[in-house]
């Protein structure tokens, strides 16, 4: 062992394993340990960003087999990307870990039910909706608990079913089916944008996307909605299903290319989708046919808060009932997209809303939602959730505002578990509820949203 021995033990045993050069770029300074939630909880190197990269490197160097243990360690990562915000050489840790998962898939595949869910159901929006229908029916008939009683004991999947039932939002009629292809700006059209509807928003939180479209229209945007859009691919990428993720990316890129010219931005109200859409450029960087198309696509993607903050018309004043709130930064918005100021500056426009600071603001401390981490690693997810709930409690908030469906559902779950009454809102819902009332110009019908639904206002906080 000498400090000066050159490295040359590299072995490519799996084509997908991330670039060796990038792995070598980790100088092992340990900076990333200080912000990694899983390291903080365990204080064990193998659960740290540096540790995960070192496993990948040991495999590449031929010092370690690609064991099931290696694969499991890669999945202990939340993909919250806190580490990437502090890494001095900018190694791109999160992306390397996710690529490592894809490489491990050939030998240690994800559980059958998960792959089936991802491949069959999420690959097309119609399938998501079809898949969601029986669950929606069960929920409506209040039979979901019965399912848990019968299936909850199944080996391998029973615990997941139990968590899912406790955590799952009440599903709604899919929004996609009622959306028009165009929502016109109310008043003068100042901008034209396209809207990307996330799967979760579609079936679980349609009110949020209704609010998004409404607010965009009121802010002078005409919104085009390509209804054939597919899932963004983030869940597949996250779970080692790289090929499916890339397929979905290509499909979405082609679809949005087919929109008429003059689209200034592709707007989404789901931080998880936004992060993936912005990373298409990275995903497809090595694909000669798609690299530049992906770059063009990603460059136009904006989180709804980012977009609205940039174009908000000064004369459009916002007024809300008095509330003490905190803003919870979604990891995928703050850490990956670097969007932290925009939602805060939008919320600062809202009179009546008092925004309190939330502890451990940056890099963001994950709430434990993290894709499907709460299903796959429930205990650790709950430990993180409890920390988040304590921070919210310490801030004295009665309302949590955020910008990602996963976070909103997770924190809502936390509130239910603690029997606390806490309002959960997406930023756009706050904006929507704070807009001045329009006289005689009711555009609600345009976006298929009943006035009744919007009037429910503050009371609708059960996701």
């Amino acid at each position, binding site marked *: 062992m000498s400090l000066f021995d*050159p490295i*040359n033990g590299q072995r490519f045993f799996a084509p997908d394993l991330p670039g060796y050069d990038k792995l*070598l770029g980790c*100088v092992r300074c*340990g900076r990333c340990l200080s912000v990694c939630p899983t390291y903080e909880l365990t204080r064990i190197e193998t659960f740290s960003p540096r540790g995960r990269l*070192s496993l990948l490197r040991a495999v590449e160097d031929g010092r370690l087999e690609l064991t099931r243990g290696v694969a499991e360690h890669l999945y202990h990562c939340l993909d919250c990307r806190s580490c990437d915000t502090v890494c001095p050489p*900018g190694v791109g840790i999160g992306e390397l870990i996710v690529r490592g998962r894809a490489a491990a898939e050939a030998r240690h595949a994800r559980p059958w039910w998960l792959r089936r869910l991802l491949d069959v159901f999420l690959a097309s929006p119609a399938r998501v909706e079809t898949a969601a229908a029986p669950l929606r029916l069960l929920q409506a008939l209040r039979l979901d608990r019965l399912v848990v009683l019968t299936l909850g004991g199944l080996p391998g999947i029973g615990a997941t079913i139990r968590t899912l039932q406790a955590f799952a939002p009440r599903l709604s009629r899919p929004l996609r089916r009622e959306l028009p292809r165009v929502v016109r700006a109310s008043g003068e059209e100042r901008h034209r944008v396209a809207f990307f509807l996330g799967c979760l928003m579609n079936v679980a939180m349609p009110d949020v996307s209704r609010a998004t479209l409404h607010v965009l229209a009121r802010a002078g945007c005409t919104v085009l909605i390509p209804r054939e859009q597919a899932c963004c691919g983030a869940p597949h990428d996250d779970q080692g299903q790289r090929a499916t993720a890339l397929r979905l990316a290509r499909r979405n890129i082609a679809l949005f290319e087919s929109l008429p010219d003059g689209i200034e931005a592709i707007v989404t109200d789901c931080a998880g989708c936004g992060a993936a859409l912005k990373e298409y450029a990275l995903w497809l960087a090595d694909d000669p046919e798609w690299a530049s198309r992906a770059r063009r696509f990603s460059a136009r993607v904006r989180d709804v808060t980012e977009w609205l903050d940039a174009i908000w018309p000064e004369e459009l004043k916002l007024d809300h009932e008095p509330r003490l709130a905190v803003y919870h930064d979604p990891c995928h918005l703050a850490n990956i997209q670097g969007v932290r100021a925009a939602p805060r500056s939008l919320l600062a426009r809202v009179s009546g809303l008092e925004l309190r600071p939330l502890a451990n603001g940056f890099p963001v401390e994950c709430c434990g939602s993290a894709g499907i981490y709460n299903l796959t690693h429930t205990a650790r997810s709950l430990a993180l959730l409890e920390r988040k709930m304590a921070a919210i409690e310490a801030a004295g908030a009665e309302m949590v505002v955020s910008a990602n469906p996963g976070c909103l559902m997770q924190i809502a779950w936390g509130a239910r578990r603690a029997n606390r009454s806490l309002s959960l809102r997406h930023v756009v819902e706050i904006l929507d509820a704070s807009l001045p009332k329009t006289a005689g110009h009711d555009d609600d019908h345009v976006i298929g949203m009943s006035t009744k639904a919007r009037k429910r206002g503050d009371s609708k906080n059960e996701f």
Partner: protein
Amino acid sequence: MNAAILSELRAAVQDDIRLSVAPEDLAAYAYDGTWAETAPAVVVHPDSSEQTAAVLRVAHARRIPVVPRGSGTGLAGGSLPVPGAICLNLARMNRIIEISRGDSLAIAQPGVVTQDLQQAVEKLGLFYPPDPASSYQCTLGGNVATNAGGPRCLKYGVTSDYVLGLTVCLPGGAIMRLGGRTIKNVTGYNLSQLIVGSEGTLGVVTEIVLRLIPRPDAERTALATFSRMADACAAVGAMLSAGIVPLLAELMDRATIRAVEEFRSFGLPTDVEALLLIAVDGDPALAQSAIDSAADILRGAGARDVRLSRSSEESDALGEARRSVSPAIARLAPHKLGEDVAVPRSRIPEMVARLQDIARENALDIVVYGHIGDGNLHPTLLCDRRDNAVMRRVERAAGQMLEAAVALGGTLSGEHGIGVFKRDYMRLACDSEALRRMAAVKRVFDPHGIMNPGKKLPEEIEKGAE
């Protein structure tokens, strides 16, 4: 490692989850903050002094090497495992046991992260000054083991200046308490100061009593550029003679300035030879007048340009340039070797020139920055580890830098420690009488040579100790 020993170790830490022989864990505990790697035979994660002592009892009886480890951010290989070793992960012992305002002290376990302690005591108006560059993640145990310093030590001293007492687990399983809660303490030999800086070769520190001081209210910063390195060094000398002891006196050479400027535009001039960042602290009015006088001195010494902060926030903004050094340098080349030498302050210009010569002679790129007030320089060689020829030249240059430091009346390491990588150079800096006494000390504490073998002492001295 055989099953009988493993089961003894398992009993020592009282729970299966505190011991691992999984290949993944062995791979993740094979390194520290350097490039080298050696997997241990087993990793244990004790939660208490008692469990740590029990591990040392087994190791002593079975003659198994023990390598203590905090966050693994060390830069000298001090926590690098040796073949067959027990890696002792102390990161889980991370409780701050007490912070006493009345006695101005804190008691902490070794796995507490330095910055976590600093933030906790600052909330109470107290201050723990040592701030190694890795304070965001390094542990107090590691700080004690290496006697860590950092930029603030010109004014406030190094870790040993703050250690009042220690609990140390010894080979064989004894637990020894040293020092206590008082600043003055001449009861017996000062063994706690012997343990500080011993790099885990004598025992394992499991509890630390640290002296705290009142938190200074304000910080003011000046940033000055110089056409000549010698002028920058003279300026700091003049400042100290005038009675201004800066909190920070950080030096960057031209290559460092360029790297920082490329990484993030601060508007620094890139055609100067040296940049000095001076910070002072204290009560706001005093800090302000001190920085004003410092600025006069800097100008008098030939600074081309001096920028001043008027508030602690502005001071923070100027300090950002210094904090950018590490990421900026990290992006210059695939890899780097960050050295750590110290020379008397008056010899810094000579040393910097010598370092640049060494780099040139070996056809390597170098950036030099450091803590000018205490003569501690961090010459950093840029390299690519996949290139054997380059790495041979890096190896040679590193040796030459150490020789140059000693030749100028300096020392092998200012703050990183000796670890594995500098043990062979110990003879350059220590006479044989001193080395013999060190070997005798080692024998007293660790007769079987199980504590962090292969570190700190030259090989033949260490072997003589067994």
